[in-house]
């Protein structure tokens, strides 16, 4: 579009539009100003009227037949005056508003008199008229006024609004119905077809609570209602008024189609501690949503016993939702504490099997604590069903079943569970096998380990893993490892690994020939390389960086005993580690030689004789036996006149440096002068 294509706008038209909008603006402001003033004037007039009426109302409220004659006369005059005013609709509105506001601020007898005055002035008829209005806010206001002013006659008029389609009116009517008559709640629960919000339920309960001498009905009657909100409200009321007689009905509601009702019923069951509901809860569990399942598990944790544990284990096993599984596990622990231990991201220290065994033993023990007892077959089923975080295997359970511990003192039933005759400390149980492994007492793979199983998989593993495996097989000193080592020596393509395997085979064979002699151990059956404190730390990680840092530390604080450990690393590790290891060995050996060459070192090993040498790397601290003391202490002795300091033969000894004879002579003369001065 070109500029020439834009239509022309007449300047006159613009001026006309400006004028039009200016006029509209002015009119708008005038309109606002006018109505604002009008409303202000009206409010002011009402305020004045209220102030004018205040003493009259006070007079009415506090009038007594025993008042003086003058007051009686004034009262009658006011009554006549107010009757005249009441003809005016605006006045009626104001006075009913005053009374309505005032009833909120006053209590006791004054409030009662206020309600009486309201009725005497027939102001409630105005409220009745409001109920006939077509405007919802007017009807709601009328209902509120009648209920607050406790106009009992309005009950019949108000209750018909309970099923009004307009929610504000309906809610107001519900509150008024409950407030005006004690049987209002019955009518409400019987007739309401609409939902009752939770907030509204609380308001209704609050309103019921304000009623004096209120005797609640048996709310279980409304548990049969077709309106689910009525059922929910009835459950809430049952709980509020502690009506425990509804146990069978509440238990039955657990089977309700609606989840909200189910949850409310479960909550009720928990609050009232209905243990009879547990079988029902378990029965309905599988056909409910996760939210209900969690509620059921909560209830079981509060009401359940040991006999519910199999069910919970089944839940933990079969459920797909991790929330429900987690809840089931926590419920098991709530019933039988510490049955399930943390398993996620837990480092296996070699006692995994023991831990599983321990868990099973604990479970078995707990299940047998059950008062009713269970048959052995059932116990087996339970154990098979068990799906603890550490997956329990059937073999593990059989292990317990097969072991028989003779107990002559007690005649035990056959189906009684195995109870060990001794108790192991949990830590011992946990780490027993790993300690044994470390000490070389048992095979690292357990009794049933067959190294031939590994041959098939050996070829598939990486070089570093192969290297570790060969090292571990050799370290185990178990001749049962020989087939695998031979297999490696024969089939391994890498010459270094082949050589390692060959060396390990030789070592094991030598050990087998002379079991009493172990060149790599110190007599305590622990290999020398494993005596280093760095050994477990080093094998804890696979990261080369971490290992290099550890080796740096070893160089800094290590001693001669770490050399065998370092030597064991020479044949197994990566190039940077190898380099560092060589350096460390060289440095440690150098330090060892330095220590040997020192004049104070008495023996090469020196362990028994000199404790400072036992440390190895530590500097020997020369220890003088001539009882020399520091110079400051000497001067202090002198100052205080302690005898030992003045003994001439000891004067030469307290110093660990040489002083001239003149210094001591001068000091002696000073000391003598001081002593003489004190004596004088």
């Amino acid at each position, binding site marked *: 579009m070109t500029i020439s294509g834009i239509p022309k706008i007449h300047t006159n038209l613009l001026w006309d539009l400006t004028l039009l909008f200016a006029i509209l603006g002015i009119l708008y402001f005038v309109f606002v100003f006018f109505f604002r003033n009008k409303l202000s004037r009206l409010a002011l007039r009402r*305020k004045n009227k*209220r*102030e004018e009426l*205040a*003493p009259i*109302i*006070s*007079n009415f*409220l*506090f009038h007594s037949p025993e008042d003086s004659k003058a007051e009686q006369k004034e009262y009658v005059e006011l009554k006549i005056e107010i009757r005249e005013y009441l003809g005016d609709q605006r006045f009626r509105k104001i006075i009913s508003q*005053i009374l309505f*506001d*005032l009833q*909120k*601020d*006053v*209590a*006791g*007898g*004054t*409030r009662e008199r206020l309600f009486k005055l309201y009725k005497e002035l027939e102001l409630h008829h105005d409220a009745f008229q409001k109920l006939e209005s077509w405007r919802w806010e007017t009807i709601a206001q009328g209902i509120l006024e009648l209920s607050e002013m406790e106009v009992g006659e309005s009950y019949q008029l108000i209750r018909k609004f309970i099923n009004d389609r307009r929610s504000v009116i309906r809610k107001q009517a519900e509150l008024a119905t409950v407030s005006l008559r004690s049987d209002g709640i019955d009518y409400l629960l019987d007739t309401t077809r609409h939902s009752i919000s939770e907030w509204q339920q609380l308001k209704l309960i609050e309103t019921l609570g304000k009623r004096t001498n209120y005797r609640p009905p048996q709310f279980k009657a409304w548990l049969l209602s077709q309106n689910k909100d009525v059922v929910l409200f009835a459950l809430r009321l049952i709980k509020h008024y502690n009506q425990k007689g509804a146990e069978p009905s509440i238990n039955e509601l657990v089977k309700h189609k609606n989840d909200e009702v189910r949850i409310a019923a479960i909550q009720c069951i928990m609050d009232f501690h209905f243990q009879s509901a547990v079988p029902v809860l378990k029965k309905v569990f599988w056909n409910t949503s996760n939210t209900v399942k969690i509620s059921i598990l909560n209830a079981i944790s509060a009401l359940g016993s040991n006999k519910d544990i199999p069910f919970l284990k089944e839940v933990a096993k079969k459920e797909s939702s991790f929330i429900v599984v987690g809840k089931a596990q926590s419920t098991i622990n709530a019933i039988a504490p510490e049955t399930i231990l943390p398993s996620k991201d837990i480092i296996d220290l070699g006692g995994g099997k023991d831990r599983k065994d321990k868990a099973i033993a604990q479970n078995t023990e707990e299940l047998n604590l059950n008062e009713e007892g269970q048959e052995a077959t059932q116990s087996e089923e339970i154990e098979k069903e068990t799906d603890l975080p550490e997956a329990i295997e059937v073999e593990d359970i059989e292990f317990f079943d097969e072991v028989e511990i003779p107990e002559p003192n007690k005649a035990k039933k056959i189906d009684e569970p195995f109870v060990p005759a001794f108790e192991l400390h949990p830590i011992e149980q946990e780490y027993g096998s790993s300690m044994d492994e470390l000490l070389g007492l048992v095979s690292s793979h357990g009794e049933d380990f067959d190294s031939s199983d590994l041959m098939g998989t050996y070829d598939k593993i990486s070089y570093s893993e192969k290297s570790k495996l060969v090292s571990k097989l050799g370290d185990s000193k178990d001749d049962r490892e020989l087939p695998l080592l031979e297999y490696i020596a024969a089939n391994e393509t890498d010459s270094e690994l082949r050589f390692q395997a060959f060396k390990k085979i030789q070592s094991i064979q030598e050990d087998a020939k002379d079991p009493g002699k172990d060149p790599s151990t110190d007599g305590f059956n622990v290999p020398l390389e494993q005596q280093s404190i760095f050994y477990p730390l080093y094998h804890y990680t696979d990261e080369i960086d971490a290992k290099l840092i550890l080796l740096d530390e070893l160089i800094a604080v290590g001693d001669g005993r770490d050399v065998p450990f370092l030597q064991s690393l020479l044949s197994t590790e990566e190039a940077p580690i190898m380099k560092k290891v060589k350096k460390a060995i060289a440095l440690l050996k150098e330090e060892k030689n330095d220590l040997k060459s020192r004049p104070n070192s008495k023996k090469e090993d020196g362990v028994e004789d000199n404790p400072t040498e036992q440390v190895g790397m530590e500097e020997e601290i020369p220890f003088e036996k001539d009882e020399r003391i520091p110079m400051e202490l000497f001067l202090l002795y002198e100052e205080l006149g302690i005898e030992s300091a003045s003994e001439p033969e000891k004067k030469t000894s307290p110093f660990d440096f040489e002083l001239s004879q003149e210094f001591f002579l001068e000091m002696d003369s000073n000391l003598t002068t001081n002593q003489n001065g004190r004596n004088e």
Partner: protein
Amino acid sequence: MPKRRLLLAEDDHMLASLLKYRLERDGYEVILEYDGKAVKEKLQGEIPDVVISDIMMPYFSGIELVDHLRNSLKSDVPIILISAASNDENIVSAFEMGANDFISKPVSPSELLARVSREIKRHYCT
């Protein structure tokens, strides 16, 4: 016996009027004020025998009024506070400031009278 002078500070005109009427019927002389500022001004001139004050008031709250009476004017006049807000903090701070009594809304005029009477007896007749 001269009439006891009560200062009633309440911003709700209707309730103030009602209480004033009730107190006067019982023989007290009631000075009515509708906001904290007016009460303070009134207190500069003369201290009444009892002060009855709402906590929530324009300009100055009832608690500030107690503080003013006790700390600025150094008066030990009995103070009764009225409030709809029956939260613990208000009540506790009112008593800490030196209020003598507290009454919560809705107010029963008869109860207020009894409390006023008790404070007068306690303060002036012992």
